[in-house]
């Protein structure tokens, strides 16, 4: 796993949750937050990682996001390395609202 103080291996992404809506978000190439992981910035560039860290801390202090941390990315797939993070990227595999199309 990775952490806020980037200690992970390989490519990194920065993730958090939106403070207001709670949804999972990732920093994209413009260092803006996206709910779409396919647009997430995945990089091994240490300068860029430092900038991601700074941006995330700034946005957390600005109350845009909460719970910022880096995640390890599998170089081969571009997906998060940890199962939990892989799952988080896709959202629930089941939701009653989707099954019944009520929302």
């Amino acid at each position, binding site marked *: 796993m990775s952490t806020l103080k980037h200690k992970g291996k390989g490519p990194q992404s920065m993730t958090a949750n939106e403070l207001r809506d*709670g949804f999972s978000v990732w920093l994209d190439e413009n260092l803006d937050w996206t709910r779409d992981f396919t647009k997430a910035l995945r990089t091994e560039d240490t300068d860029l990682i430092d900038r991601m860290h700074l941006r995330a801390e700034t946005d957390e202090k600005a109350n845009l996001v909460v719970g910022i941390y880096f995640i390890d990315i599998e170089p081969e797939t571009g997906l998060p390395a940890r199962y939990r993070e892989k799952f988080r990227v896709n959202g629930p595999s089941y939701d009653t609202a989707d099954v019944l199309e009520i929302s």
Partner: protein
Amino acid sequence: MYRYDEFDAQLVADRTRQFRGQVERRLAGRLSEAEFRPLRLMNGLYLQLHAYMLRVAVPYGTLNSEQFRMLAHLAEKYDRGYGHVTTRQNMQFNWPKLPDVPDMLDDLASVQMHAIQTSGNCIRNVTCDPYAGATAEEVEDPRPMAELIRQWSTLHPEFTFLPRKFKIAVTAAEKDRALIKAHDIGIQIIRNAAGDIGYKIYVGGGLGRTPIIGQVLREFLPKGELLAYLTAALRVYNRYGRRDNKYKARIKILVQETGIETFTEQVEAEYATIDISDISVSDAERERIASYFAAPDFETLENDPKAFTDALQVNNAFSLWANNNVAAHKAAGYAIVNISLKPKELAPGDITAAQMRDVSDMADTYSFGELRSTHQQNLVLPHVKQSDLLALFTELQAAGLAADNINLITDIICCPGMDFCALATARSIPISQAIAERFADPERQRTIGEMQIKISGCINACGHHHVGHIGILGLEKAGVEFYQIKLGGDASEHAEIGKVTGPGFSQEELIDGIENMVDLYLKQREAGERFLDTYRRIGIAPFKEVLYA
């Protein structure tokens, strides 16, 4: 139903107003997340894997139709159109937005509901036998006592920051439908040899990563001493419970490490220092609370009215449902109706806003406006005339709530698992659906008979897998979910922790393995035996043999 007095109403209004201010300050940046987190948790608001989750308290699992309609309103206005009944009889909403939560709490307060005591290291919402006040099996209705505990424990200044959360369950029947021996404190209302009503107190039960069955702390506690005695027990826990390690902080670990004899001595010694009259509640106050739970105005009726027995003869679907989902009531001509929230295609315990409104209407028409949630993630209409059962069944069918599988293999307890929970290590909902699919044939379910499958998506055991006849624990290793099986657990008055069979399985292997064990049971069972009975008679070895074949 208990109605809030001015103090209750003021307390909830104050708390809601405070939380609105806290949310405003958080959104404006005047509270950090570190400061805000304990405040939101004290109001039932979690930040889960994908979004916020609001857990609404349903004290002792009792609701009126107006309250259930309000839950429907919340689901529709602020969430995604459904709610989830939890294994502690509460209701969760999976997708609320932080700025909306104060409005949700305001709406809840308008029907005397809240989210207090649904999180944090406090005395949590008290759970109860869902048949309370309706079954002839009980010594007396346990809800007045549960309400007394609610009033005593709500925002209790001494017990708001315990070493860990603290769960109390109560029942007044020998048949345990509240899982009292798997709670920090379990209370059974009993009658002693002299005919006096009092309490048998269990302590140190719990599931989670260290499952333990509770032990008897007091064989008989006189009625007037309950709150003083609970105070003594909580004080000993507050004093000696471990705060250095959250995984060893529950009272069950303290009781285990101390030994029940020494722990009991400590509680009794503390109790001896308490002036009971300081805490005890007068008979008049107890009677005042009990009056809110007075039995409805039952008509004088005969059991098995002709309209009911005729319908059983001619309507097979109704007959199957009535035989399985309806329980005996204390009043002649009435019945307790279990509404299954376990249709094959949906997650256990989920109910849509439309269905909530339908059930509210049914409660008004057929059950004096009252309903219950159960720890098995179902609903109960407690007071239905037997002559109304067919009409009720027809309405349940129309609402998609007529599944006749209560206590059968598809009546599965299942936590939200990794689909929603931040603590989970694996998904549990797809497992429950796969089992429901495999055993979809209603005739086969009835042939199998009573079977309790319980699924947890992590070792915290919200899905009660330790006490399932078949318990399933979801884990993850190297990015792959796998599932460990326990056998022989029992959530009844004969509570028992199941035994792990061995290495875990993939989902596909798991479902095949369960089917193999069920087939073995059907071959081996003797007359009248449930799966659990056969397991106890022949032992774990034959089941392991077919499981790992």
